[in-house]
């Protein structure tokens, strides 16, 4: 190797080192500073939701700054109005549920005990006689621990609610410029690959997040309308839970519907009421699967159901509920990256 080529190689390695270093530093800051990672994830969600509106206004001739400010102001007005309208109701339902939790847990454990004794009549006891008592203890502990942490969770949520729009605003305004500067650190030999990879991941993530958000909103809205019409308690709270958990494929809709069925069973609901409840959640999922998924999710990265379940389990292990929600986009990004790197290694080079 000539001294000149050796110098080029040294420069390439230095650039790669700084690029990877900058990425690691960024990830380190995000994961070490409290509330930063969640704020950033939420900011990314907001970014992908608002970006089409910003691009649309820019296409209409507005400068990037105004094209960013206007949708932000509109969303702020809309969010404030919705917050004023629904947040007190949501909070009161949450408080009522927390207060009534011991009663629900007791009834749920009793119900479980009855089911256990029914099962033991037909077969050998699988989980032991005191399974329902253990479950009652675990649920009571879980609720009391979470109730204790509620002020911390609320203050953390407020930080996230304030930080996320702040980050999202600057991502929309200067994000592309920042990315260009970051890409400037990439060595020449890898530049085209990384640029293309960034574009692919970004467009797939955009489609994925927008589709999932619309799905969640529609599912949440149908569940809310249905429960209100049925006169079911905690309608808003249960609709929010259904909408949030709908983000998790396959498992989410089932877990999202479980609290409503548990409340109905504990309250001694009739078979007709249970059937109506099943119809509400079933309709929401049917509309999602038959109308929204074919039209919206067609472009989304296709992950095999087994991969999805594995990703959810890993996400839950690593990051709890947040991990479960973000694991699918993260896995999709990893899939796109792996395929692109594989193609680069096998097809890119002659």
């Amino acid at each position, binding site marked *: 190797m000539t001294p000149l080529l050796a110098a*080029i190689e040294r420069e390439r390695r230095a650039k790669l080192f700084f690029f990877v270093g900058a990425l690691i530093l960024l990830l380190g800051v995000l994961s070490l500073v409290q509330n930063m990672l969640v704020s950033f994830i939420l900011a990314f969600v907001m970014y992908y939701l608002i970006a089409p509106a910003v691009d649309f206004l820019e296409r209409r001739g507005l400068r990037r700054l105004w094209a960013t400010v206007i949708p932000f102001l509109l969303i702020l007005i809309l969010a404030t109005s919705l917050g004023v309208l629904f947040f007190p109701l949501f909070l009161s339902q949450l408080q009522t549920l927390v207060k009534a939790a011991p009663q629900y847990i007791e009834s749920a454990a009793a119900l479980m005990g009855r089911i256990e004794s029914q099962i033991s009549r037909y077969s050998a006891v699988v989980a032991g006689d005191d399974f329902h008592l253990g479950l009652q203890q675990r649920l009571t502990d879980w609720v009391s621990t979470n109730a204790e942490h509620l002020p911390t969770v609320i203050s953390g949520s407020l930080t996230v609610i304030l930080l996320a729009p702040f980050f999202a605003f600057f991502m929309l305004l200067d994000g592309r410029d920042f990315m260009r500067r970051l890409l400037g650190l990439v060595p020449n030999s890898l530049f085209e690959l990384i640029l293309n990879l960034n574009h692919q991941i970004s467009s797939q993530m955009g489609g994925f997040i927008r589709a999932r958000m619309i799905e969640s909103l529609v599912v949440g809205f149908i569940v809310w309308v249905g429960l209100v019409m049925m006169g079911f308690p905690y309608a808003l709270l249960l609709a929010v839970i259904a909408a949030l958990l709908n983000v998790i494929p396959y498992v989410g809709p089932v877990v999202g519907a479980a609290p409503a069925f548990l409340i109905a069973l504990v309250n001694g609901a009739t078979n007709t009421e249970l059937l109506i409840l099943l119809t509400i959640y079933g309709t929401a999922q049917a509309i999602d699967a038959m109308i929204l998924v074919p039209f919206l999710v067609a472009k989304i990265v296709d992950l095999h159901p087994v991969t999805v379940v594995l990703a959810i389990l890993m996400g839950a292990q690593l990051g709890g509920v947040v991990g479960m929600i973000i694991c699918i986009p993260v896995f999709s990004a990893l899939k796109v990256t792996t395929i692109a790197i594989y193609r680069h290694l096998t097809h890119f*080079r002659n």
Partner: protein
Amino acid sequence: MNFQWDNLFRSSAREQKLISKLRENMLFKDLSTRELRLVENIVNIRTYRPGEVVFRQGDAGVGMYIISKGMVNIYTEAVDAATTEVSTSQVTSLREGDFFGDLALVDPGNRRSASAVAGEETTLIGFFKPDLIEIADRNPTAGVKILLRLGEVLGVRLRETTLKISELKKDLPA
């Protein structure tokens, strides 16, 4: 010398230079100053040492390069089927203002048909498919203008290739 003023002046001159370089290029000829500013903020400036490879023959390409400063040599490699020896021959040398790799902007499975190597300290303006998509998203008029010019460039290249093939066919024995 006041360094602050010195830097400000240099930065502004550099921006002006980039805009004028873009304006001189066939693809961006029809763009207004505002549209050129958008392109200026999107394109990628890359610097290469003498002998540094821009891309290799057979690489998947995602865009084109405009030579802002310096020189780029274009080589093709051919493998002898019998001996498996690789022979390299220089096709041409491109100078400031020239551009290459434009087919990659529209061809999804594009493979570079030749290798490009910097002949001296070289600055290239990289314009890639994601950049073209971003321009079309943010300013469709500018996107259409660029695409029309790109069509023209590819048309000229096709015409030249057809002409060459016709000439070669003439030389073939009947």
